[in-house]
């Protein structure tokens, strides 16, 4: 028998504390769409996606209604397009991106991920062709997201690719300058990219995955923050327990939704991603959780420790609540998508250096950070190299999604709208890494990659 207290707690989490399912993402393999003819390839891509995911949005909406829990996004991820477009020219890859965009519009989803390449050890001709048109593909489509994996702990860091990524980000900013360089918000550079991540912009359907799979990303920073507030001035052991219990409950909802979606869609269940994903809405901030723990402002000394505790407790609580956990699983710290982070940057409490340190102990990396539009490409490559090194050395996923907003400088604020939020331009170190980035080649894998 369910008791009244439990019912009220659940309802309160949903209505007052912004508990939601951030995304149901269907991963679809496009390996069977391979064709020498680019038009035929694009038709097959469109047909496979729109056929396989035809009920995704409806099923998402039904589950949302029946369980009373908001499901914010319904999305699709596909096999990295460079793998199925081995014979495509750069123009052919743009056509493929447009086919993905058309499929997304037909389905009524809000993002489709997988326009990307895995080049951690080196790039094929197809990889290079795809990468060369990422800025155009992002500018000429609405819903396509792109990611490139440039490093793994096993392979080391492909610094040629890192150098290219700096130029790619700059050109994506230029080509979408009329929309605050929003192209960059749909592009992520990864180290140790997971093959089953349901969150955008970095979602793609890995080659080790089945033909189709459903994964769910949970959310709920507001729920954790409120639980900590109710816990009062307890010590750290008790604090970790509070977070674990809350994460367990949040993840159980994710598991329920994932299970139902899998059953109704007739597609296997993949994973639940245990991430605390903030939104710009009040009461939905990871920074506010850290502040609730006792920091005056996120970014103060102690922030990294607080985030490490949070990230670890979320995983410990969540892992028992789901049969399969995967993806990124941890706390996200995007700047523009988190009201507390935005305010911390505005107050001068949170620098890019502190954000970089924080990424060593939580999921993902430097995310949705707006930088000076005049930042040179090699500085962006160096930011990427630093962040990717943290991932490679610590055997974890890290990523970079920075936006050198065209024509914007420190002191300006850039507004992307919706879930992408807004952010002040953050100040960077002024000294040049130019000669370092120009060396090219690969940074060897760390010694602890030799585990066999």
């Amino acid at each position, binding site marked *: 028998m369910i008791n009244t207290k439990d019912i009220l707690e659940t309802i309160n989490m949903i209505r007052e504390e912004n508990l939601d399912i951030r995304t149901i993402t269907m991963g679809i393999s496009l390996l069977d769409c391979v064709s020498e003819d680019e038009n035929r390839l694009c038709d097959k891509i469109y047909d496979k996606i729109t056929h396989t995911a035809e009920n995704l949005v409806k099923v998402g909406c039904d589950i949302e209604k029946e369980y*009373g829990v908001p499901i914010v996004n319904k999305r699709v991820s596909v096999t990295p397009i460079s793998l199925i477009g081995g014979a495509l020219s750069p123009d052919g890859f743009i056509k493929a991106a447009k086919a993905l965009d058309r499929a997304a519009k037909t389905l009524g989803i809000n993002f489709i991920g997988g326009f990307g390449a895995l080049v951690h050890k080196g790039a094929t001709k197809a990889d290079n062709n795809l990468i060369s048109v990422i800025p155009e593909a992002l500018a000429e489509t609405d819903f396509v997201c792109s990611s490139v994996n440039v490093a793994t702990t096993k392979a080391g860091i492909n610094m040629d690719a890192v150098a290219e990524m700096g130029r790619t980000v700059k050109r994506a900013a230029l080509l979408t300058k009329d929309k605050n360089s929003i192209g960059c918000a749909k592009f992520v550079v990864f180290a140790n990219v997971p093959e089953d991540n349901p969150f955008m912009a970095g979602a793609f359907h890995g080659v080790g995955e089945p033909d189709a799979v459903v994964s769910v990303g949970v959310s709920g920073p507001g729920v954790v923050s409120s639980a900590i507030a109710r816990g009062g001035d307890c010590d750290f052991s008790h604090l970790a327990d509070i977070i674990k219990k809350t994460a367990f409950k949040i993840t159980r909802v994710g598991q329920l939704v994932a299970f139902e979606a899998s059953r109704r869609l007739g597609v296997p269940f993949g994973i639940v991603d245990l991430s605390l994903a903030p939104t710009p809405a009040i009461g939905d901030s990871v920074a506010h959780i850290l502040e609730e723990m006792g920091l005056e402002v996120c970014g103060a000394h102690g922030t990294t420790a607080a985030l490490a505790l949070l990230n670890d407790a979320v995983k410990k609580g969540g892992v028992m609540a789901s049969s399969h956990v995967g993806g990124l699983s941890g706390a996200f710290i995007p700047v523009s998508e988190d009201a507390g982070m935005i305010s911390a940057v505005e107050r001068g409490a949170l620098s890019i250096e502190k954000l970089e340190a924080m990424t060593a102990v939580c999921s993902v990396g430097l995310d949705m950070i707006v930088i000076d539009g005049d930042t040179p490409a090699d500085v962006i490559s160096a930011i990427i190299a630093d962040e990717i090194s943290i991932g490679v050395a610590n055997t974890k996923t890290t990523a970079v999604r920075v936006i050198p907003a065209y024509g914007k400088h420190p002191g300006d604020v850039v507004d992307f709208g919706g879930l992408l939020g807004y952010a002040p331009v953050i100040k960077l170190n002024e000294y040049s890494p130019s000669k370092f980035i120009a060396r090219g080649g690969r940074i060897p894998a760390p010694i602890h990659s030799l585990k066999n």
Partner: protein
Amino acid sequence: MKAVITVTGKDTTGIIAKVSTKCSELGGNIVDISQSVMREYFAMMMLVEIDNLTMSFSEFVDEMNRLGDESGLDIHTMHEDIFNTMHKI
């Protein structure tokens, strides 16, 4: 299977009657009910068996929402599974 219906709003005559009549019209069987009135505010929670609904559960949720809109009440209908999974191991 059961659903939990919560009803909140300003207290007026006949709220329980309205909601329970609608439920039974649609084939829902009320198995438990608790209600309280704090000053002028009314709050009720009902546990309803939904195995013999005359429509799909999704349509039942729509109907209850419509009743809420018509009578100026906040009515939410949720499948019991969400409470069970969240609070029971």
